[in-house]
């Protein structure tokens, strides 16, 4: 399935300044795998060392958060668009009062 992955501005330095990447993938996991296989420097900004999508990284298939679909196993179809959207977070100390 030909899907398009939209690359957020901060990560375009790792995709040769391309704002979107087309790839063939049957699932979201395949698409992200293809993307980070081609552009390996992207991987550490999207995934933790044990291969999980970072907690602040949200992945949308078209306009749906994949957490509410079948997560990374969500199936794709021709013409789908995958978006990578961060939840911006931070703070001064450990959480608590």
């Amino acid at each position, binding site marked *: 399935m030909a899907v398009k992955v939209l690359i*957020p*501005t*901060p*990560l375009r*330095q790792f995709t040769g300044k391309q704002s979107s990447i087309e790839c063939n993938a049957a699932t979201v996991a395949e698409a992200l795998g293809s993307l980070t296989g081609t552009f390996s*420097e992207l991987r*550490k*900004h999207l995934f933790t060392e044990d291969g999980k999508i970072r*907690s*602040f990284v*949200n992945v*949308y298939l078209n306009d749906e*958060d994949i957490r509410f679909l079948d997560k990374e196993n969500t199936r794709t179809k021709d013409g789908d668009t995958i978006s990578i*959207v*961060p*939840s*911006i*977070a*931070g*703070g*001064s*100390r*450990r*959480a*608590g*009062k």
Partner: protein
Amino acid sequence: MLLLAKKLEQEIRDHGARDYPHECCGAMLGTDGDAGAREVRALFPLINRRDDSPRNRFSITPEDFRAAERAAAERGLDLLGWYHSHPDHPARPSEFDREHAWPWYSYVIVSVDGGVPKDLTSWQLEDDRTKFQPEVVGPERVAGQGEKD
């Protein structure tokens, strides 16, 4: 270098004071020049969505992120980065900040001590994610200065 007009810097400080003792947060919209200087042209204040621990955490949802992106696009600007406050804590990024950051963005932090804004710093995450590097914050470009850069 991050060019930040005194007026906008004051707006960040005021936001930090207004939301004290909670952390404030917002987006910075502007232009990113290939010559290395980026200039903040407008701020897009946001609501700290972290209601369980707002004194030492902030959270900007994907919906707010998209709203900030739209605001930038409508003005013909880029989403350059984010600001937040550290109430009663130095204006230095925490480990939690590092874990939740991406390179390229400018992360401005203002310390707010007892309700009074103090230091304002800016940081960028290194590409290998190991640490933040300080980013010089300067006043806005003077007319004619650096136009040929």
